[in-house]
């Protein structure tokens, strides 16, 4: 065993038992069901914005109010969506992820 992991915490054979437990499967399922679609969503939204900025100059230059054009609004909306996803993720992870992770970690602490 190399330097990467402290031996005191080796899970050994326990790991595969835990990995196949219903609680762990639930935790992993919830985590992936949140972060994968969310990642797909913000990447799609970002590249939509990049493609519009590169290929749709006229559309982006269309002025809405005063000198504020669609390009600026879309750009600022990227900031809004980034902040929003950050806060939604934080709330979700604090509420959904942490209690389940802590419960499993506590079980593991006992099993060692």
């Amino acid at each position, binding site marked *: *065993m*190399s*330097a*990467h*992991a*402290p031996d005191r*915490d*080796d*899970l050994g054979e326990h*790991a*595969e038992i*835990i*990995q196949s437990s219903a609680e*762990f499967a639930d*935790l*992993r399922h919830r*985590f*992936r069901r949140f*972060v994968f679609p*969310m*990642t797909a969503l*913000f*990447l799609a939204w*970002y*590249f939509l*914005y*990049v*493609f519009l*900025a*590169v*290929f749709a*100059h006229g559309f*982006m*230059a269309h002025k809405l*109010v*005063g*000198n*504020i*054009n669609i*390009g*600026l609004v879309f*750009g600022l909306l*990227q*900031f809004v969506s*980034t*902040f929003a*996803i*950050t*806060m939604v*993720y*934080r709330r979700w*992870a*604090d509420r959904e992820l*942490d209690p389940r*992770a*802590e419960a*499993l*970690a506590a079980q*593991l*602490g006992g099993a060692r």
Partner: protein
Amino acid sequence: MTSYAASLPTALPTATTVGNPTLNIAIFGVFVLITLAIVIRVSTQNKTAADYYAGGRAFSGRQNGIAIAGDYLSAASFLGIAGAIAVNGYDGFLYSIGFLVAWLVALLLVAELLRNVGKYTMADVLSFRLRQRPVRMAAAVSTLAVSFFYLLAQMAGAGGLVALLLGVSSVNGQRLVVALVGILMIVYVLVGGMKGTTYVQIIKATLLIIGAAIMTVLVLAKVGVNLSSLLGHAADASAKGDAVLSPGLQYGKTSTTKIDFISLSLALVLGTAGLPHVLMRFYTVPSAKEARRSGVWAIWLIGIFYLFTLVLGYGAAWLVGAKAINAAPGKANSAAPLLAYKLGGEVFLGIISGVAFATILAVVAGLTITASASLSHDVYNSVVKRGTATPAQEVKVARITAIVIGVVAIIGGIFALGQNIAFLVALAFAVAASANLPTILYSLFWRRFNTRGALWSIYGGLVSAVTLIAFSPVVSGKPKIDGKSASMFQNVDFHWFPLDNPGIISIPLGFFLGWLGTVTSRELNPAKYAEMEVRSLTGHGAEGAVQH
């Protein structure tokens, strides 16, 4: 690389004509003294390897979030993006969005899992369930490549920035400044370790964000907090008129520049979560929950800062004017300092100059500690000593390598003075996205992933990104304007790759090779993957904070 970085200051024939260099130097000196005092104070607590590499893992999520902002907001962000907006309008704004959205990848997919699995370096995670030595070696090579490209660009930038801000115009004077920056950086890292470096980054981020906020308020006050009229003034002041308010001025010219921009966007948005010096920051907090907090703080601070640069860029376009900015030494990079002078005179210019300089210092210190940690923890301990080195030996080697890296960076920085090497920042992001991110994601999420996949992906991503850059127009073959080509080499042309940014080829290639290597190898270790997965999601066995 990109417009903003391409204009990072290079050695300049003339010194700045605005401001008071003595005052600028004095303000910068005060910053150095205060940070040195703090670094020396915290150094007494540097006892263990976890102290040296990870600041004892005792920083709070908020502190680390601020430090991440300090690490991430390099001179390219502050001077470069504000300058790019001032000169090229909306296209400068596009970069900042890529740099920001990238943080969601780090927050959602990487930060917490990495914190739970790893210890000191990126390679801890990549090699966890694979064959240690080859994978650590590969991860160390790519860590060193990314850190070195980034470091060199910062060091060369420091020389030019000094010409602009401190009035050091002679070539030898600039060399001296590069050496001074390097020595200060070595001292911070050697004495303070990760803890000292973190404090330097926290102080710098605080100063930078407050400075930018004050400038933003001053600009907005001039237009009655009306963004539309600020944009109107900026468009009126520009020879390009309304074109500065919408995309396309710089990247909309030909279909090559359009594809180039898409390639850059890809590298920006996927590169951040693969930058080793960013990843290493997540080990300085005690838990995955605090890693999450760090990410949240970093995203808010970085996002708000980029919103400031939007106002500062258009403010500089209006109050200073693109013509005056392009005529100044440092070109687009001088937009923010010139705006500061316009808004608050000599003293304010001095403060902003000091902040800009502090920025370089904080970023290079973070890069040096990352590179030295990888050399000692991954190469020395795991590859050379096969994991038998004691923590004390490891830290000793890390300190020695920090000095070596510092000296190499000084020499490299001196040679790079006056060279157009700003594309190295884009290259660092492209390598991070092509070589590191695929392996990190496969490693965390794909059960089947194995050693061959990791090696093919890391080396394939690294070699393809570097090769494509070497034969791209940023290195040779850009047409001459006023007798000087924008490429690194003059009077030769060996480019065959049409784009400045390799990401659009090298990133998919990195992911593809990771898949191909994996499915052609039979290696599979379900027990190790189970251990990694359980650890990554539950935090079991994660390294805790060091108790003093």
